[in-house]
């Protein structure tokens, strides 16, 4: 099929022989660059300079110091001791963040789509021209359909700058995949229970907990730094860990109890735990009496949900369920049933998160030491700019009557509203994408590509060539976080605090910081009045001054802590406390869910099971990588160059598959992975499931280190279970089978 918007390989750009050279050459080149880094040995007393930053490799945003040597070259990143996210210790990705800066595959210049001899390709352009093209197209769409038809898809820091431009332009059609593809369900489930979402970083008081329960959460493989650190502290202090996972995860290996649950049956286990805790009167009676609403209804609701009932569903022995329920009750209130992070699994995820929240409530852990603390963030005043125009419609109108409890826009709903066949009430005509590789981030790649084909115009801002940049009309090269200022990080924690990111080096190539791109694009769009400042330092200094600091001070300290302004992090004994729910109490029985037409209390529902010869695809993390963005980072490739597909030895024997053999995967919808994946035959995985880390299988040749390395789990996720409560895309209902021979190309996805 000939599509209007051909995918353009950025390697096709006049880089000629260089791009054609094989991986080996690139490797050599990479090491040369690293070699030149700081000359010889670290033995020599190099005079190092350091610049504060906070990490942009993942959302944990650890604060640290970028070190440069006497020639101004970036040589290492070390954590900021005063930062509660990192406590002076970056994770492997943060330490390896310099690879993002040194990656010679980076986007180097603005690119514009053009047609040469009937073939679409990119040509290099000046910033002025590229921004001009974007402004012209956005304005054309504004005239034809209104500014609302330009949608933004953002992740991380660039979104805050470009979002401002988008709002000033008159559009609030803006989505962050981090919501509907990741943590949305838990935010809604916890908000419905406690009147407050979980937020990031999670206010889990792991360092002081006596019992940590992980359900499908693989702390230690996900390097959510502060949590990993606190889990280790908890291990030191002798806390017991209970891990529920079909896989013998790293966390499971550190656990007192590992419950190797049958996938998709978590709610049954949670309800059985609730049953045991209520029926054996193990719950925190005073806490529940004082703060909870709907206990009676809950008790009645779980009456028949016994461990024996759950055994038939989860395959977890009733005695194990009871023992673990007693274990957490003994630790109460210093017990945490962790809400997890990537929570979009089966489409009833909000309900599962509700069950987790209820269990926490029964154990009295919300607002208690060793449970969940009341987080507090520093609030910085906004730099005064004129009120942006009010859009005629926004993402709420796109949701319509779907996803009533979605507190943030659902990215997949925006994608659907881009495709005319869906008869959207308001059709989106143009995308501005920054920091998110949509074809690999969103499930159902075909739908995403189809939506992109329908667009009249798409601009993408990124540091690296990615699947999404290949579909853009204009590509803008953003510089990496080590080369730019961004807004102050003011994330919630035990203590309010702020962190500064400033450049440690000039942007490489022709890349530019997002704030500059946002401002210049705004000016091209005639929105100068929304950018009444010369550069971002002005804005930061203005904000910091009002917060009781200054840019000058922050450059020296990097992180500054403040006193809590809104009370203690924990409830005092018997303290009166009003929760932000309809009833003002912790809602075991959710009136909000009921009002929106959903079950007020969670129940187990049966999910699809793998057909014969198929295995449930469980995807997750490998500690060295994040999303699909780190797969080409030279330092992190060193740690993990390709994904391994975990297969149980029994399954491998049936299929005659050897360890380290490369195989292709085919899913229930006959989708086949573009590249083969290396098998790891291991006892760490159930026989009805396979596991692989997310973020590999890149099809971009320009990503010289990672191109074609392993399969992409995203390719296999075509069966999406949308959560009716908040629009989350459940992705764990996909099943794969194995192809040991290379499949014929025409059937490949």
């Amino acid at each position, binding site marked *: 099929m000939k599509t209007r918007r051909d995918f353009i390989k950025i390697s096709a750009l006049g880089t000629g022989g260089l791009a054609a050279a094989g991986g080996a050459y690139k490797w050599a080149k990479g*090491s040369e660059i690293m070699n030149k880094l700081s000359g010889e*040995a670290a033995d020599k007393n190099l005079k190092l300079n350091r610049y504060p930053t906070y990490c942009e490799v993942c959302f944990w945003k650890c604060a640290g110091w970028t070190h440069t040597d006497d020639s101004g070259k970036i040589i*290492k990143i070390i954590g900021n001791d005063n930062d509660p996210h990192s406590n002076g*210790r970056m*994770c492997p990705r943060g330490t390896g963040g310099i690879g993002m800066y040194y990656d010679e595959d980076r986007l180097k210049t603005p690119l514009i789509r053009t047609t040469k001899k009937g073939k679409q390709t990119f040509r290099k352009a000046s910033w002025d021209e590229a921004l001009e093209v974007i402004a012209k197209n956005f304005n054309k769409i504004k005239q034809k359909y209104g500014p609302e038809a330009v949608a933004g898809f953002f992740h991380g820091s660039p979104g805050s700058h470009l979002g401002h431009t988008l709002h000033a332009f008159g559009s609030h059609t803006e989505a962050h995949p981090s919501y509907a593809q990741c943590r949305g369900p838990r935010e809604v489930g916890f908000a419905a229970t406690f009147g407050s979402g979980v937020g990031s970083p999670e206010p889990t008081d792991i360092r002081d907990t006596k019992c940590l329960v992980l359900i499908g959460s693989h702390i230690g*493989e996900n390097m959510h730094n502060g949590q990993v650190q606190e889990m*280790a502290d908890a291990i*030191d202090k002798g806390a017991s860990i209970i891990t529920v996972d079909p896989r013998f995860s790293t966390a499971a290996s550190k656990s007192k109890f590992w419950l190797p649950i049958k996938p998709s049956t978590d709610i049954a286990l949670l309800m059985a735990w609730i049953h045991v805790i209520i029926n054996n009167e193990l719950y925190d009676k005073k806490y529940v009496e004082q703060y909870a609403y709907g206990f009676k209804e809950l008790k009645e609701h779980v009456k028949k949900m016994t461990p024996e009932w759950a055994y038939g569903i989860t395959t977890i022995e009733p005695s194990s369920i009871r023992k673990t329920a007693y274990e957490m009750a003994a630790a109460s209130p210093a017990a945490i049933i962790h809400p997890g992070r990537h929570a979009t699994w089966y489409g009833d995820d909000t309900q599962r998160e509700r069950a987790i929240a209820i269990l926490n409530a029964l154990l009295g852990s919300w607002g208690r030491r060793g449970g969940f603390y009341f987080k507090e963030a520093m609030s910085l005043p906004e730099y005064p700019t004129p009120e942006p125009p009010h859009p005629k419609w926004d993402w709420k109108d796109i949701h319509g009557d779907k996803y009533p409890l979605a507190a943030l826009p659902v990215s997949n709903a925006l994608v659907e509203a881009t495709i005319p066949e869906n008869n959207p009430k308001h059709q989106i005509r143009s995308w501005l994408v920054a920091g998110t590789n949509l074809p690999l981030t969103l499930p159902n790649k075909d739908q995403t590509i189809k939506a992109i084909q329908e667009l009249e115009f798409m601009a993408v801002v990124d540091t690296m060539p990615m699947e999404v940049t290949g579909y853009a009309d204009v590509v803008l090269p953003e510089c990496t976080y080590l080369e730019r200022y961004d807004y102050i990080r003011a994330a919630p924690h035990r203590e309010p605090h702020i962190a500064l990111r400033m450049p440690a080096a000039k942007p490489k190539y022709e890349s530019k910081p997002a704030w500059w791109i946002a401002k210049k694009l705004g000016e091209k769009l005639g929105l100068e009045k929304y950018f009444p400042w010369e550069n971002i330092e002005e804005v930061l200094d203005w904000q910091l001054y009002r917060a009781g600091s200054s840019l000058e001070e922050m450059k020296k300290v990097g992180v500054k802590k403040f006193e809590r302004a809104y009370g203690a992090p924990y409830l005092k004994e018997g303290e009166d406390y009003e929760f932000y729910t309809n009833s003002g109490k912790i809602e075991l029985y959710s009136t909000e869910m009921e009002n929106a037409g959903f079950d007020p209390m969670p129940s187990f529902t049966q999910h699809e099971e793998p057909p014969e010869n198929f295995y449930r695809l469980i995807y997750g993390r490998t500690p060295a990588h994040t999303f699909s963005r780190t797969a080409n980072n030279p330092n992190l*490739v*060193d740690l993990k160059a390709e994904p391994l597909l975990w297969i149980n030895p029994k399954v491998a024997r049936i299929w005659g598959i050897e360890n380290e053999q490369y195989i292709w995967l085919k899913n229930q919808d006959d989708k086949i992975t573009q590249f083969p994946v290396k098998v790891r035959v291991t006892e760490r995985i159930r026989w009805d499931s396979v596991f692989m880390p997310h973020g590999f299988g890149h099809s971009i040749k320009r990503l010289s280190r990672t191109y074609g390395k392993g399969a992409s789990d995203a390719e296999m996720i075509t069966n999406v279970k949308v959560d009716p409560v908040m629009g989350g895309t459940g992705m764990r209902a996909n099943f794969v089978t194995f192809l040991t021979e290379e499949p014929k190309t025409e059937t490949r996805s």
Partner: protein
Amino acid sequence: MRYAMAIDTNKCVGCADCVVACQTENNVPVGYARDWIAEIVAGTYPNVELEIRSERCNHCDNPPCVRACPTGASHVVEGGIVKVTPEECIGCGACIQSCPYDARFSHPKGYVDKCTFCDHRVKKGRDPACVAVCPTKCMYFGDLDDPSSDVSEAMKNRKYKALAPEAGTDPHIFYLM
């Protein structure tokens, strides 16, 4: 004085932060590593055990690499740290063959390279880069002769092992069990 390292396998998650911190601290070229992560899985699902270890040069008391070296480039410095002087190394590979831990490698510049316990940091009273960066604080470094050092404290009251002691090398990286 005898420097040593103790690594708590109960806390290590195998994130390999130690590896990348070493690379950036010591300018180890991309594609090479002075330390690494080993994973040992035993048992049958669902009765499985997992041991994760951060491994590196063991800075042996009886270092076969130093004995094998024909030029004296491999040598022991104060505190038992085994080091290589690039300007004396001819790159013959004898030390690489002699190491039961395969902890040495040929640097692209020709000389043999390995873990130095970050002695440039240790001299200044700081921990090696891998120890300082570890998110789980599972590594302890210090002087074994000093009973109050981090490493001595960590090894008190804990069961521990070293790798391949039967090689007779008297290794000084200990794994707390």
